[in-house]
């Protein structure tokens, strides 16, 4: 065998060694790094007088502990909002010497795994951002602490929040967080693009009932072989849309005692039947709707609403902010969400977030004095004017605090602000149970199977209700 083949082998081994030693160095440095800068630990356990319930003495009055307590704040307020949050942190640290806040902004992707492992840790972050459905589950399983006692101890006035917004945060007589931002404020509302009405030579109208919506949507929707060119309106194709319309038809998800699933009521079937007919007859089917709004995400300039291709919109609450960015000169108006005029008991009604209101939870494993500090931080970003309120104002989004929304800057930025406030007052908090995420997905399956024509609306809802009821029954049978 010639030695020419062997040569590269030798060189590569030398190289490999070099690489290997480099790698070892790197990894050694890496492994050493954590020990050089240890994870910020909480202050030494002080012999606390009140080990049990949170101490009622306002801690700000007590001298700052020798070592600062660090509140690791696990949240998804990224991008521009991270900067705003850091400003709140700076203020908070100034007002509370002895407490440091670390802003742990997390990517939204894989939020669920990230949240659960963080909570499962023996050393969890002191405050974590979670959805309302998650809060309920954690509360029910005793993973987080209620804040009811703190609210009493600090004499906080929960009446400063809208009833529905603070109502989202209770479970079994205990309060587990305060809200920020709002869960509602928009689900009751209908936005219309006046420019499109004007361009068509029509007087802008805000449809008040389902049949009015049908008429105007039909008139303005334009289809071609590839799908939708312009849309009058879509009533949506998923569970959240169904729930919004259900409550405008005097329906409900659960019975008052949360033991019965009630969405397959006559009102429910009416609602889904109307949604399916609307989607098929006006939009040309659910696929048309999906395609029309498909693309690089809901919050981009390419969306039909910013391009005079959508007459009526039932958006989420960040819409005002996005409209200012993408189409500041748009003429638009706003009114209540259409209700079923054929049902004498129905009226326009908004939901203050049945699953997706954001909350801030405190893990149970924390030491009392750390819990106390954690609550102070939760209070800052929800209750305090220079905290949560300010954070919302900077973004032009409504706050769950009534007084906060009276700021002039809102009225300046949004000509229809009074209607948003009206909606916040009338929104209801849908009482949900800890298995809601699952019930909601089952409902979504039902809505989809009707939309895709696999089942009739009645059949779809009845099947879904039966399945959801089994989940609810199982839950209650475990608790009794």
């Amino acid at each position: 065998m010639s030695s020419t083949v062997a040569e590269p082998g030798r060189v590569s081994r030398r190289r490999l060694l070099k690489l290997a030693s480099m790698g070892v160095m790197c990894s050694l440095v890496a492994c050493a790094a954590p020990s050089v800068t240890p994870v910020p630990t909480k202050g030494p356990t002080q012999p606390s007088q009140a080990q049990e319930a949170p101490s009622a003495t306002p801690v700000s009055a007590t001298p700052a502990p020798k070592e600062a307590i660090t509140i690791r704040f696990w949240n998804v307020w990224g991008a521009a909002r991270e900067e705003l949050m850091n400003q709140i942190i700076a203020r908070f640290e100034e007002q509370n010497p002895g407490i440091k806040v670390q802003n742990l902004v997390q990517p939204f992707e894989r939020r669920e795994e990230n949240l659960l492992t963080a909570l499962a840790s023996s050393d969890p972050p002191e405050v974590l951002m979670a959805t309302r459905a998650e809060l309920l589950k954690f509360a029910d399983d005793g993973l987080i602490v209620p804040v009811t006692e703190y609210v009493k101890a600090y004499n906080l006035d929960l009446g400063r929040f809208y009833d529905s917004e603070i109502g989202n945060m209770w479970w079994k007589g205990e309060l587990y967080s305060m809200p920020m931002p709002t869960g509602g404020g928009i689900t009751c509302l209908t936005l219309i693009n006046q420019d499109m009405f004007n361009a068509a030579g029509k007087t802008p109208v805000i449809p008040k009932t389902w049949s009015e919506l049908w008429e105007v949507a039909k008139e303005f929707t334009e289809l071609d072989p590839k799908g939708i060119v312009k849309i009058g309106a879509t009533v949506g194709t998923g569970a959240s849309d169904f729930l919004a319309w259900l409550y405008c038809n005097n329906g409900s998800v659960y019975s008052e005692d949360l033991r019965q699933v009630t969405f397959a009521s006559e009102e429910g079937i009416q609602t889904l039947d109307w949604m399916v007919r609307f989607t098929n007859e006006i939009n040309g089917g659910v696929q048309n709707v999906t395609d029309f709004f498909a693309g690089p995400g809901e919050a981009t300039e390419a969306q039909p609403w910013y391009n005079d291709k959508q007459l009526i919109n039932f958006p989420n609450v960040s819409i005002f902010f996005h409209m200012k960015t993408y189409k500041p000169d748009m003429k638009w108006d706003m009114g209540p969400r259409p209700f079923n005029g054929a049902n004498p008991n129905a009226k326009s009604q908004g939901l203050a977030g049945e699953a997706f209101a954001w909350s801030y939870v405190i893990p149970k494993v924390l030491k009392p004095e750390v819990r106390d500090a954690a609550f102070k931080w939760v209070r800052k970003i929800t209750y305090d004017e220079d905290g949560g309120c300010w954070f919302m104002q900077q973004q032009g989004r409504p706050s769950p605090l009534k007084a906060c929304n009276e700021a002039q800057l809102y009225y300046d930025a949004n000509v229809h602000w009074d209607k948003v406030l009206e909606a916040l007052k009338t929104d209801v908090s849908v009482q949900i149970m800890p298995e809601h995420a699952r019930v909601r997905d089952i409902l979504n399956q039902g809505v989809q199977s009707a939309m895709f024509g696999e089942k009739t609306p009645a059949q779809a809802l009845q099947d879904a209700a039966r399945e959801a009821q089994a989940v609810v029954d199982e839950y209650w049978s475990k608790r009794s």
Partner: protein
Amino acid sequence: MIGRMPVAGRAAAARPRPSRGWLRRWVGLAFVAPWLLAFVAFDAIPIFSGFYHSFTDWSITGSPTRFVGLANYREAFTRDPLFWKAVTNTLYYIGFSVPIGIVTAFSVALLLNRRIRGTTLYRTIYYLPSVVPTVAATIVWTFIFETRRGILNWVLEFLHLPIVRWLSDPAWAKPALIIMSLWGMGSSMVIYLAGLQGVPQELYEAAEIDGASGWQRLVGVTVPLMTPTIFFNLMMGLINAFQVFNSAFIMTGGGPFNATLFYMLHLYNHAFRYFRMGYAAALAVVLFVVVLTLTAIVNRTSDRWVYYS
């Protein structure tokens, strides 16, 4: 090469070492030891805990865990309406993506192994997609698949073919994801390329002298010698396709109408959205058993079709 061995000169003096028989018998275990250590430390408990929890109603959120026997398994096979949907979707995906992936990557590797100009550039181009982070790739493909404005439908229109609602039509969403997976076949292509270097050139020459056509050479020489590599890609393709997750999770979220609800998505929903770790564990065990059985069968048949020089 052997001549380079430092001890080669003493070949004649080589002596048997019967006393080292014990060592000979166990030295292999020493090679495997690091991995074994890692397995015991980091794999054994999580895998066992998966098996154990599949018989419980563990929720990970702290509610008391109870032993429920086979209830989770019964639920999966009899009561969970989405279980079979997820199984069929996954089998569909495997049935198309694995064979098409193997054939495509192998063919491309064959072309790129030819001595023509520009192979370096071609190889880099064909590998390029697999270095794009998944999240960026899915965003790009979302644009490409758009019904009204996507590049793919633009091409179809140009060719006077009917357009396709890639991501909104339940019948087309899976093919769309398979197309996207083919785009990222660079890794298996690289493995084939590496494997092709082990095919001795003179075997081709010999075959050519015998008058074998290109196809005959491929079937008679290349493919048999490549079977270890094909075997590897088949096994890994199966294992990975059974657990297809990322593309559907980011791009379609399981839709439209559950068309891309793959097994892992279903499992994920129960684990992290409904906090039903016990049930998720049972689903995982079912998957584990199926994959293990299938790969064991493939492995067993490998004696008949995989040739190690």
